């Protein structure tokens, strides 16, 4: 209980006490029987195959636990029998909404081991594509949020505007969903002609989409009453559970790997802001993501203006052999911190790869967070925590 005394605000304290009290109240007042509700593995709120076992007292959750692994595809094991260039094909299916972002940390880790660095032009384009995949990912979240709360229209707006971003990614990389564009030492190709102007136009559209969502959804009173004060994660708890990304920033922790890590990427060449929110509730998490989408469009806009000339590929051998050693690189992916720990024995492929994906850690807080909430709030909280099933199960 010292936690509640020390750091929590009034509202957070109340939410915490309510969750504790829910345990005590069961079977005391009305002699009611509890009910175990399996939310998933097939359930619209889990957008995938996550199963949440919830013990209910009426509509109140007494105890909840996520059961994941229904979509485990064994990527960590598969990387051991692939060569380095082949691994990107695998890993961009981890978080399938922002696939390019999955390739980058792996490539960076391999480059670190090989001690090569992509030329500045490649770094710039990498960063732009990284941010585009973040926009593609989070804009869908913003629409999906509405569906989870019962408003069906926003998701179609999100799909409409996300399509522009996917078209951009497709015209640059050839892959709409799974670009597989990143190479050790640079990129597969240069940008097509006219791409820069088109991207500028799309970024303007996306900013319009953000304004629209903020106006239509975030400004809605029902939306606010459904999300404000729901699923409060205090700063300390968020840190203890290892949350990352927007979920952590929404709890007031000023933490962004794009700014904090010194990686061979172009983020530090643009002027942008890391947003935090003091509340830590569902609304804060959604709001942070909305602001991040805006910041991403700004980053892309600025970087488009300053793409340096030069090659997009460094000098690397045709057959890539990574020297013996171990490397860990993590980046700030759309869902949070994503990193790869590569152990190399000097072969064509990695000896062992440990993938740290954001969603797996982000949903580990659900047993703590879901205690004492009502069934409709489960959906709100899961939606605002924002996980991708591929990112949980890998």
């Amino acid at each position, binding site marked *: 209980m010292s936690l509640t005394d020390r750091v929590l605000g009034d509202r957070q304290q109340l939410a915490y006490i309510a969750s504790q009290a829910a345990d005590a109240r069961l079977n005391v007042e009305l002699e009611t029987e509890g009910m175990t*509700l399996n939310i998933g593995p097939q359930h619209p*709120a889990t957008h995938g195959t996550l199963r949440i076992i919830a013990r209910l007292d009426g509509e109140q959750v007494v105890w909840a636990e996520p059961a994941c692994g229904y979509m485990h595809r064994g990527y960590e094991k598969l990387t051991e029998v692939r060569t380095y260039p082949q691994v990107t094909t695998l890993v961009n299916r981890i978080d399938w909404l922002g696939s390019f972002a999955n390739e980058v940390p792996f490539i960076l880790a391999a480059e670190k081991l090989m001690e090569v660095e992509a030329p500045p032009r490649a770094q710039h384009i990498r960063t732009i594509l990284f941010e585009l995949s973040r926009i593609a990912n989070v804009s869908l979240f913003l629409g999906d949020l509405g569906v989870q*709360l*019962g408003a*069906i*229209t926003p998701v179609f707006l999100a799909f409409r505007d996300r399509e522009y971003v996917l078209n951009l990614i497709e015209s640059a990389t050839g892959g709409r969903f799974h670009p597989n564009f990143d190479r050790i030492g640079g990129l597969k190709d240069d940008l097509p002609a006219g791409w820069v102007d088109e991207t500028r136009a799309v970024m303007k559209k996306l900013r319009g989409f953000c304004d629209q969502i903020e106006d239509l959804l975030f400004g809605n009173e*029902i939306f606010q009453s*459904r999300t404000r004060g729901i699923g409060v994660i205090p700063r300390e708890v968020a840190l203890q559970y290892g949350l990352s990304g927007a979920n952590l920033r929404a709890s007031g922790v000023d933490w962004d790997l794009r700014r904090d890590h010194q990686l061979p990427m172009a983020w530090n060449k643009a002027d942008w802001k890391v947003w935090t929110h003091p509340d830590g509730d569902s609304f804060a998490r959604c709001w942070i993501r909305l602001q991040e989408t805006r910041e991403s469009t700004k980053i892309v806009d600025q970087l488009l203006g300053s793409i340096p000339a030069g090659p997009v590929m460094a000098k690397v051998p045709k057959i890539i052999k990574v020297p013996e050693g171990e490397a860990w690189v993590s980046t700030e992916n759309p869902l949070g911190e994503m990193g790869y720990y590569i152990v190399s024995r000097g072969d064509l492929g990695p000896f062992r790869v440990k993938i740290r994906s954001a969603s797996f850690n982000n949903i580990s807080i659900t047993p703590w967070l879901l205690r004492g909430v009502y*069934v*409709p709030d489960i959906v709100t909280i899961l939606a605002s925590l924002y996980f991708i099933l591929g990112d949980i199960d890998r």
Partner: protein
Amino acid sequence: MSALLAEVPYWGQSLLRVLGGIVAVLLPAGTIVYIFLFKMMSFMQSRLGPMEAGPYGSMQLFAEVGKWLQKEDIVPERADARIFKMAPVIVLLSTFLLVAVVPFGPDAWFTDFETGIFYALAVSSISVLGILIAGWSSANKYSLLGGLRAAGQLIAYELPMVLAVIGVVIQAETMNLQKIVVAQNSGSMFGIDTFGHPYVISQFIGFVIFMIAIQAELTQAPFDMPIAESELVSGYMTEYSGFRFLIFFIGEFATAGVFAMIASVLFLGGWGVPFSWFGWTSIDSIDNWMNVVGPLIMFTKMMLLVFIIMWIRFSYPRLREDQLQRFAWKGLIPVALLNIAVTSILKVVF
């Protein structure tokens, strides 16, 4: 209708009544589904909606009905089969019972109850039973939660609905829906009788409360937590398939249509036009062509009200169950009671 059919034998009258009832329920339901659910929603969401079946997809509903009729009628193994099968019929039945008191023209009505609105409100709550037993007999936890939510919600919103209607009843001095229509169209506001006296003006608060209560009774967003497809999958409808789901589906939109009809009778002057336009003095002096034009006027008003219902449904997120109850008991009901008090005082004063 009885005045038109004086020479027709009783069995013929009954047959025509049944046919008329089916038309009055299913025609609006089909139109609502096509215009609002298929097309308006699509246009709001920057897509075209169905375009293949018939011109602009207008035959889509027939295609969907055909699909549902072909599907297997699945009853879950542990469900209470007899009650499970009965539930959708009860829901649709209440809609048919409801339309029986709605007047469509000076002589075009099914039954002319003196206590018509009382009957309508009583009958409309039968659908709660259907929903509750659907939720209970499905032997599904989501259905059970949905059914219980529906019961709590429908009972909570029945009350503001009744209270909102009382204001109209006080003003019209009758519970007969036909007489309420006549009172609105033959009335005058501040001595001006050009527009009649539709109660939407003097009973505006009552109208708003009534529309909100309808929204909740129909379990449309933002009050759709009994169905709540993102949390309870589909609530009490989860286990239904084939034509039983179809009945629920038709019931949902048919009830929307019929409730909108009742709202237009109570607040917008129903089938009528202001009597002063054509120099009519009472219901007996109305020309016979109103029996044809009246239903069309009624239909237009109904579509207008359904448009509002659907517009809100497609754009709002869902409330939580406790927020919904708080809204009914702490917001709507006190306002409705106040409305009754003010109405009755003003009625006595003027």
